[in-house]
């Protein structure tokens, strides 16, 4: 087994231990679990609500609900996508309650080029343009496609994790993702 595999195995076993303790009511263990995964849950909620305050509230509510539902959490299951799933549902409910329309809120951050890449001004401008075009193409997709792309690439979840986060079967994630990427390519062609 590779060193990475050994470390990953240890992390998983450690996480299983934390989950087992949290299920017995250990709030400290639950806090450690949340500290590991709150960022990805917040990012998911933010992409849906587009508001830092609402994303924070949605994530907090999701963490509360996850605690209450821990008794039903299957041994050996993955905690991170499970928490993301609850955060996504919470964020979508809040958006619906506020009467806002479907679709992720996708914006580019400032200064997205890494300084270490030392790109020329032209290359940098080209990269920015490419990103802007790709973002616009994702923005044109329907929300189902956006969500599956966001789960897999923006949140960097594995296929298995994306399936849990979106409440789908793994095979369904594979096929839907493939179709979403096809539609994205067509949108890119239209924009170009």
């Amino acid at each position: 087994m590779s060193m990475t595999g050994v470390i990953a195995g240890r992390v998983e076993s450690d996480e299983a231990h934390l989950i087992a303790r949290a299920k017995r009511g250990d709030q400290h263990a639950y806090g450690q679990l949340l500290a590991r995964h709150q960022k990805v849950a917040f990012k998911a909620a933010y992409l849906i609500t587009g508001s830092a305050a609402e994303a924070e509230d949605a994530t907090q509510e999701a963490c509360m609900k996850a605690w209450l539902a821990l008794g039903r959490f299957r041994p050996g299951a993955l905690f991170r996508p499970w928490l993301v799933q609850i955060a996504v549902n919470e964020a979508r409910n809040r958006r619906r309650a506020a009467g806002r329309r479907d679709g992720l809120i996708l914006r580019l951050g400032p200064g997205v080029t890494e300084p270490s890449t030392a790109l020329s001004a032209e290359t940098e401008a080209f990269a920015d343009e490419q990103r802007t075009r790709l973002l616009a193409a994702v923005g044109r997709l329907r929300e189902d496609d956006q969500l599956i792309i966001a789960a897999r690439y923006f949140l960097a979840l594995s296929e298995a994790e994306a399936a849990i986060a979106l409440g789908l079967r793994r095979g369904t994630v594979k096929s839907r993702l493939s179709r979403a990427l096809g539609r994205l390519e067509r949108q890119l062609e239209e924009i170009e």
Partner: protein
Amino acid sequence: MSELEQRLLALGTALDVPPAPDIVPAVLAGLPARRRRGPRPARRVLGVALATVLLLAGAAMAVPPSRNAILRVLGLRGVSIERVRRLPPIPSGARTGLTLGLGEPIAPSRARHAAGFTALLPPRASGAYLGHDVPGGRISILIGRVLITEFRGTAQPYILKVIDPDTSVTVTRVNGAKGVYLSGAPHQVLFGAIDRTIRTDRVRLAGNVLVWGQGPLLVRIEGTRTLAQALAIARSLRG
């Protein structure tokens, strides 16, 4: 991984997402006990039911009869929250600044002992008011746009918050006591005062509200952006 997938991964790191706040302390502070061994004692259930009936009876006198059913009764003693389609009308002139009906302006340094109780004060206050609309008085303290309100409730404090369908409700712990955080849409507060009447609070801010009972006082913090901010202010209050 295809080139498009690689570009999407790179795009994911370039998206405008604010830094994730550390919500763990607030979550842990608000966690209810998950496992309950055995049924609740009958007396406690009866007490909660009675409190609910009293609340509903009191509220029915104070608000129009077209309300939906009570949303839920929370663990916070006697506090109940009702969702409604439309908020009751607010008295004219009760919307901004001094017209909020906070009472007479007083020096923040006088606020601690100006009412019939010892008020809890933050380290810094930009203004303070003394109101006489509830027996024992009401102290309001401003920190910029954040408003802290304190008054003596009943021995078993209860309040009824009438909220818009878009208001979110979070049960949390505040300085060791159970509290409720309402966020999102504006809402209105009805509260039970020491003389056991139900009064409509004329203060209505669009901001979020954290409310809890601390000793004999009901304390409310309005206008913070997040629950974490409200909890930080709550922790800074000293009697």
